[in-house]
């Protein structure tokens, strides 16, 4: 599909060497903004889930991994939309040379593997810029490319832990071993990655210079916690876990509604909100003067929560939401990522979901882009994730101008391909159905 010319990055080609979330989401966002993202994979090492998943493996269309599970894995297909797939065996001279040829036709190379992976292929920034001096090249290891942790392995949850965010998460009445693992920093690395790349593109237009972008996933995320680090220096006490509560708003919490595992979040942000709220709840137990101040409500928070829960527990969560919002009382229903969000009227009215036809996985409404541009008039790009090696011919023939003989040789030497080789299974995270 021809990319829409009005998109911010539609003149740009980027090479993605990435797995899991941070790098792939970075490519996904740039793809949504019109960039041509060529995901460089290999048939020697598969980052698309297991090649022969067990029969109970979840996450495949209709629970059927099919004959080509690597093209049908739900997480992969959701986050690799709007990309092309090229397979290359970078451990061979032919594969490496093809990559170098492709670099000369590209604007950006980005990688979220461990820091030394590209260097070991002979594709360090210094090598790559010999081929294309104005290349923009980004490595995004967990702790950055320098310092004592430069070669430490990490994942989103590791960054969540080391930045202090894990310490502040969780139920205040339980210890940290009850914490779930959260990988949110992966996504932050992706948005910061796009930010850095876009800025480097502006810089390149003005000066002709490329850049090496040293992205630390930890530092990226730490800019989202800045006030917490300042509090420690400005106050005589440190922030402790707050759960669903807030120092300036009370009551605040998540309350049970009718149905299974249905909840509503409510924040009372002022005394004026409180007086509207208690009138809506209409329970005399809330009428005490003591509750008319923030301090009083905080002191008796558990008692107030009990009354609110009694009020919400027999009601439909959306009824409570609409009633509270009609008074501009801060509230929101807890939506899950499945049926709730697909049924949400607001997300639907904004066309958040996009029907996507995938050649192997079928036709499904998938999560759409997160940016809306006036200039697009509602037209969003949403091409399916590529099948493995789907665009080998396009890249080798059309972008690089290789002849048929050379391409046939690439196939024979297993430099390219569309089916994983035996031994290429890297496993990977996946769900177990039900």
């Amino acid at each position, binding site marked *: 599909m021809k990319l829409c010319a009005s*998109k911010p990055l539609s*003149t740009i080609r980027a090479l993605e060497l990435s797995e899991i979330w941070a790098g792939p*989401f970075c490519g996904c966002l740039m793809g949504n903004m019109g960039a041509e993202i060529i995901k460089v994979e290999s048939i020697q090492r598969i980052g698309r889930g297991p090649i022969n998943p067990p029969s109970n493996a979840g996450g495949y269309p209709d629970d059927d991994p099919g004959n080509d599970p690597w093209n049908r894995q*739900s997480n992969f297909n*959701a*986050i690799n939309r709007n990309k092309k797939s090229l397979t290359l065996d970078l451990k061979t001279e032919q594969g490496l040379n093809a990559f170098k040829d492709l670099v000369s036709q590209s604007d950006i190379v980005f990688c979220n593997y461990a820091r030394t992976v590209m260097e070991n292929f002979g594709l360090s920034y210094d090598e790559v810029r010999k081929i294309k001096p104005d290349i923009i090249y980004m490595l995004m290891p967990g702790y*950055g490319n320098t310092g*004592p942790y430069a070669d430490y392995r*990490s994942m989103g949850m590791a960054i969540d*832990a080391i930045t*202090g*965010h*894990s*310490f*502040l*998460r969780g*139920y205040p009445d339980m*210890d940290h*071993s*009850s*914490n*779930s*693992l959260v*990988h*949110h920093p992966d996504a*932050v690395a992706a948005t*910061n990655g796009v930010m*850095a790349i876009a*800025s480097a593109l*502006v810089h390149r237009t003005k000066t002709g210079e490329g*850049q090496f*972008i040293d*992205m630390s996933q*930890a*530092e990226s995320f730490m800019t989202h916690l*800045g*006030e*917490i*680090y*300042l509090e420690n220096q400005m106050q005589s006490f440190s922030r402790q876990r707050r*759960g669903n509560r*807030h120092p300036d708003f009370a009551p605040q919490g998540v309350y*049970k509604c009718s149905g299974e*595992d249905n909840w509503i*979040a409510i*924040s009372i942000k002022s005394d004026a909100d409180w007086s509207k709220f208690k009138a809506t709840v209409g329970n005399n137990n809330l009428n005490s003067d003591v509750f008319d101040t923030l301090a009083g409500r905080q002191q008796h928070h558990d008692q107030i929560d009990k009354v609110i829960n009694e009020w919400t527990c027999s009601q439909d969560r959306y009824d409570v939401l609409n009633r509270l919002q009609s008074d501009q009382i801060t509230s*929101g229903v*807890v939506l899950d*990522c*499945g049926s709730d*969000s697909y049924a949400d009227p*607001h997300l639907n009215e904004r066309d958040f979901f996009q029907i996507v036809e995938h050649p192997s*996985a079928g036709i499904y409404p*998938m999560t759409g882009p*997160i940016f*809306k541009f006036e*200039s697009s008039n509602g037209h969003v790009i949403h091409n399916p994730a590529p099948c493995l090696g789907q665009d080998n011919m396009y890249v080798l023939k059309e972008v690089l101008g290789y002849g048929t003989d050379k391409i046939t040789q690439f196939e024979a030497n297993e430099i390219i391909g569309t089916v994983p080789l035996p031994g290429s299974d890297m496993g990977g995270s*996946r*769900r177990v*159905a039900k």
Partner: protein
Amino acid sequence: MPFGALEEIIVLDLSDRLAASFCAKTLGLYGCEVIKVESLEGDPLRQWTSPTQNGQVDDSPIFLHLNAGKKSISMDLHSKKGQSLLADLMKVSDVVIESQKPGHWEEKGLAYNQIKNINPSIIFTSVTPYGQTGPYKNFAYDELTLFAMTGAMNREGLPDREPLRYAGEIAQYFAGNAAAAATASTLFKRTLTGEGDWLDISIQECMAGHPHQIGRRAPYIYAGEPDPRSQPRTSASGAREPYAVGTFRCKDGYFSFLPLGPRMWPNIAKMINREDLMTHPKYDDTIKRSENKDELEAIFQAWLNDKTREEIFKAVQAAGVPGSPILQPEEVHKNEQFIARDFFQDVTHPNGQTLRMTGDPFRLSNTANSQIEPAPTLGQNTTQVLQNLLHMSNDEIEALTTEKII
């Protein structure tokens, strides 16, 4: 000097909430000149959970963080004169960042579709809780209630208890970051075409379209898999080692682990000096390790009990096992990695206090890191901005001051 990629770009920051303010701050870190336009009363975030230091009320930590490096101009935005002054500023700016309810600027003649007539290449970035359209567009929100509506909350916490938010203001920061990335991408297009644009960024959609949520939504739509909260130590994935997943107590705190599958088992056995377990009939394959999870967890815990986070961190890195110590926030800026990279910078504020503040979320090879500057006091740069951008005379500025427009 800040990194020059976006130098000479003038950003008008009209934000009064976190996400839009962080969007503007991020653009500032890449070299934009960010002019914060405040009402005469000031950004409400100045007084957000404001702490007192020696009894003195200061701007809040969140304000100081979000506005480091910005300039402040304060004006009466309710008055016609103030609005006309703002229109003049929009005319000479490159980017406007705003967070008001949809329709707010239209009434004042200051919406994108009105301003683009006087400045066709302006980029207007609106960062609002639910976007410019749809039934929730005027909903009241805060981090808790918005986070609930993104899909992120439903999975956080224990199955038999209420769902939890993350700590901090995570959804709003994330959306601010995403909005900055989209704005910078649009700035790039503008360098080629001269075209402006209006960006409608919904904080809800940013979090709902985040990999965490995408990764849960896809198995639902492909195969009807539900998305419940689970026990923290039961890995959602059958491919992971079941006993060393999650957060564990150790000698001086807590440590998080996420071994990535059966191939990690030998690494773990070696790490805890129990290679004998690799051939033990109770533990020699994934299913058996799963069935004997409690016993293995006890062995693992015994190894952890007399070790510090630091010792465990060295051990997991040597063994190639994904894991990381949980630091307390006050430990973060003392961490050797962040010190080695000079991530935090000492910044002296107008009240004389020196604070260690977060630096750049990136390093670029061709330029030095940003020098982090303190947040401005209210209206600190009013005169300077009006002189430099609108070439106003001292008399004109004095007249506006007398009329209480600025």
